[in-house]
């Protein structure tokens, strides 16, 4: 019984305190500005307990933007492997979901899911800050629903 209670509190804590790290894998920086906009007074994700972190070691969620360019591919994998589990990946913007408007270019792989297991896709080019917050809230629900990752 104690194990169940511990798991529940862990899930509550993971849900309520998401530490985010942002990596742009080669897109136009439209989505990146909207992600930075989340920190500013109008959207302010700190009230949801979400804080932007500097080092992959401290982060739980990897917010990626951009169609994975071949040069940034190794960097993306390095960051994901440095993050302690349980960790989640959120693909922000149409480029990171499917390659978006740059589909067909020979230097991009088109989409984060080709490299990393993605938990939440947020479409939009660029996606609005409200959409990113909605995606993060969906990630929070997803954390509290499924068993420990």
């Amino acid at each position: 019984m104690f194990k169940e209670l511990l798991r529940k509190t862990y899930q509550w804590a993971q849900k309520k305190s998401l530490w985010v790290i942002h990596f742009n894998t080669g897109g136009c920086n439209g989505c990146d500005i909207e992600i930075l906009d989340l920190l500013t007074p109008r959207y302010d994700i700190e009230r949801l307990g979400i804080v932007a972190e500097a080092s992959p070691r401290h982060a739980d969620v990897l917010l990626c933007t951009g169609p994975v360019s071949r040069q940034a591919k190794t960097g993306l994998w390095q960051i994901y492997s440095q993050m302690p589990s349980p960790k989640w990946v959120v693909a922000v913007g149409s480029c990171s979901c499917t390659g978006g408007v740059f589909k067909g270019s020979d230097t991009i792989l088109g989409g984060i899911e080709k490299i990393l297991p993605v938990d939440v896709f947020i479409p939009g080019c660029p996606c609005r800050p409200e959409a990113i917050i909605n995606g993060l809230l969906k990630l929070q629900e997803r954390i509290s629903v499924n068993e420990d990752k």
Partner: protein
Amino acid sequence: MKINNLDALRKSMADSLKVDCEVYRGIDGDQTLRIPSAELKRVVSFLVDQMDCRHLSTITAQQRVEDPDQIEVIYHFWHGISFSIMTMVSEELPRLPEIVSILPGADFYEREVAEMFGIEFVGREETPPLLLPDDWDQGPPFIRNEDHRE
């Protein structure tokens, strides 16, 4: 010394440098002078030193469908008016003199043209890739045997 129009520039280049250059094609809003590729370095140093025209906007390289084995390299300058210097290079032996020693600003543009069109700039110590990924193995992307405009 301001360059008011291109003919004055062409005359001064012709007599001072003994370089035969003819107006290649008056691009709308921009005049182009064609010079043999060997004379490139002298012309650019003449422009930079005597004419004090030092703003090189960029270096464009392209291939025209009508003569596929020639690569056209255009140096776009800006000095009050916009004009450019153009040379032709053959695709089998793409070699051009470098102008980084005269204009350090041209470094990035030369590296980009070198990796995109496979042109070798003689005289540069090293031409590291600028934009293409490290694991790029398909040769210069703009030079493809089949027409890449499918």
